């Protein structure tokens, strides 16, 4: 693994140096006109993201036009897991990271333990740009800011109005919000609606039990670790077992789940085959839904969430210190996370901005999404973002979350015994201590 990376890197380095030499000759004439580049020469900046960040080639073209000599390449990993492993591997190897690496909030804490790998991005220019809790997540105890916030993940419930109607349930977004309980919505209420739907149609209600669990656990203030001591409390916290039992019972006993693993091929295909009727939808998920369900009509999003509100995911852009052009990369990261660009990203893919100015902007407030039956997604997500509980996520959060999510997938998708899978989870957690 390491050898191939190094070899590939050497090849890439060789090719870029040839390219640099070649372009240096041609551009030397008008070098005086170039103002944007810090180093004077032409540079290539790579931006590594995952899933859907909403950054388009057109945005990069604009930045390239404004900053002559800068070429931007985007690398997109399919899942957050994959991006995490890529980044870890290359940080350890000491080379090969992109100039800008996106990090998801779930695995940010484990990298926060090693801030030396990243540039300090704190700067007076960007002070007060983000919601305070978003900045706090990426700030080390001694005040180093390692990432610029991109989006946050306030969640609504995305549903298929046509399938709801066929099941005899209300289908317009206000009535559906009321159906789930409006401002007092609970998880019990959510599963209750599911039972009605499944009883009427005989079809599964939601996509994946582990996705529902994600929504639930993101409402816990301190799910797996003690915020003060950092000790693992996942097995002492009675809420974890309660949520596990609740979600597996709903998925298997009540047959509410379509038994998919999120991001699997089956899951992706099921958007085209009416596989399920509702799913939890953080802002960034809207782009995923409209992409997977292209051509399918009937999707809508309701301004309601069980337990009030929740934040699922949200990411940061970091600048690894090993990059060759850290200053130029910092400028680009600051530009990409500026309110204007994040508003545009939201309009592209629904990634809900974490910038204070963007949240107050008319573009967000008046934003509608054609795919979701022209739903006022900006307003809905802004409502959902209001009372977000910001959970504590320590260095072991991702590992524990991964383990319990595997257990739920085994029960939900593969029909394993819930009690046995819980024991497996306990074993994994004990192995961490």
């Amino acid at each position, binding site marked *: 693994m390491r050898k191939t990376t190094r070899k590939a890197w050497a090849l890439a380095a060789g090719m870029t140096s040839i390219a640099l030499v070649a372009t240096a000759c041609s551009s030397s004439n008008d070098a005086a006109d170039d103002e944007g580049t810090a180093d004077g020469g032409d540079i290539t900046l790579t931006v590594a993201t995952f899933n859907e960040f909403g950054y388009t080639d057109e945005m990069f073209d604009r930045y390239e036009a404004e900053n002559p000599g800068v070429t931007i390449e985007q690398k997109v990993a399919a899942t957050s*897991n994959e991006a995490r492993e890529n980044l870890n591997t290359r940080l350890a190897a000491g080379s090969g990271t992109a100039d800008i690496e996106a990090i998801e909030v779930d695995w940010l804490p484990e990298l926060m333990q090693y801030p030396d*790998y990243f540039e300090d991005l704190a700067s007076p220019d960007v002070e007060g740009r983000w919601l305070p809790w978003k900045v706090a997540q990426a700030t080390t105890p001694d005040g180093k800011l390692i990432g610029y916030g991109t989006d946050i993940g306030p969640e609504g419930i995305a549903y298929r109005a046509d399938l709801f109607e066929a099941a005899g349930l209300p289908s317009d977004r206000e009535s559906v919000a009321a159906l789930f309980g409006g401002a007092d919505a609970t998880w019990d209420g959510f599963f209750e609606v599911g039972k009605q739907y499944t009883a009427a149609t005989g079809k599964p209600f939601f996509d994946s039990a582990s996705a529902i669990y994600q929504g639930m656990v993101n409402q816990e203030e301190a799910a797996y670790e003690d915020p003060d001591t950092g000790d693992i409390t996942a097995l002492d916290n009675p809420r974890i077992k309660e949520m596990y039992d609740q979600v597996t019972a709903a998925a298997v006993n009540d047959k509410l789940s379509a038994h998919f693993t999120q991001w699997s091929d089956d899951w992706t295909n099921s958007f085209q085959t009416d596989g399920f009727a509702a799913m939890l939808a953080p802002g960034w998920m809207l782009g995923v839904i409209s992409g997977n369900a292209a051509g399918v009509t009937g999707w809508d999003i309701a301004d309601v969430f069980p337990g009030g509100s929740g934040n699922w995911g949200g990411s940061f852009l970091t600048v690894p210190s090993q990059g060759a052009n850290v200053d130029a990369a910092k400028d680009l990261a600051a530009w990409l996370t500026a309110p204007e660009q994040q508003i545009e990203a939201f309009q592209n893919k629904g990634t809900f901005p974490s910038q204070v100015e963007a949240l107050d902007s008319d573009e967000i407030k008046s934003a509608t999404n054609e795919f979701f039956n022209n739903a006022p997604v900006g307003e809905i997500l802004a409502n959902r973002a209001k009372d977000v509980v910001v959970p504590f996520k320590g260095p072991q959060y991702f590992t524990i979350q991964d383990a319990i999510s595997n257990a739920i997938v085994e029960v939900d*998708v593969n029909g394993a015994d819930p009690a046995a899978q819980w024991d497996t989870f306990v074993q994994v957690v004990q192995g961490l201590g």
Partner: protein
Amino acid sequence: MATSTTQPRAGRRLPDSPRPPRRVGFSQTLGRWDVKVSPYLYISPFFLLFALTGLFPLAYTAYVSVYDWHLLGGQGEFVGFENFAFVFQEPNFWKGLRNTFSIFLLSTIPQLMVAVVVAALLDANLRARTFWRMGVLVPYVVAPVAVALIFGKLFADQSGLVNTVLGFAGVEPIKWHGSVLPSHAAIASMVNFRWTGYNTLILLAAMQAVPRDLYEAAVIDGASRLRQFFSITIPQIRPTIIFVVITSTIGGLQIFDEPRMFDQTGQGGPGRQWMTVTMYIYELGFGNQKSFGRAAAVAWVLFLIILAVGMLNFWLTRRIASESTPKQARKKVKR
């Protein structure tokens, strides 16, 4: 005494002809060195390279395996064999071992059997021979990751083509990503798709080197095609079969790409249904634990396992080679 007698002698000779004997002596030494040392110099590049790319990583892995060593945090305390002890009591390690051998057997055995048969068919007098021969190599050209992506879709549990086709035959959908053995079969099919053609060509080359007069003699003796295949072709290409078995063994025990790409998370399934030992090494080192020490411990265990299987193969090779010699001798007598 001896020194006092030799010294004056040497002193006496020096003024007469001091240089010639010395020069002869030195060039003789040089010559002797040339004969004795230079062959080692000539073969040294291999050993230097091997020491650099083979021996050093091996030794360094052993060094890492006895430390508490974090991917990003770096070297920690000396822990002795704690990493090995940890790994041995991990159920995932044993699952990985089980999966590796299961996928290895499911892929290598059918693959080599099919390869031998296809090679025999290609060895026959076909029209457009080169076309067919090159045709079997096409799957090998496809990148393993692309193969894995395509097969991942074919073997999707609910929406995959394979289950749909099985459904026509009245077979219940198989949980390709959920159960242990079906997932191994699906991954083995990827490996087979990619490597059968490659092994076929190697075996075909060996078959073409079989002297044709053996077949002519067999035909005169009235041997059927099948008889010729088992009594002439197979014994004659035995060394090549052993070579193919050994390379497949090494490749099979280190399988990584196909199982890793079999689903989106790349962990080998939620219950580690198809996680191989190499994937386990990767998970320990770069996944959740980020423990290089433990990963290095597993790497060493895997090395020892491959060594053991390699020795088994060596023993098999010698056994079969000595078995095949009398047969060849017999044929020579016949001729």
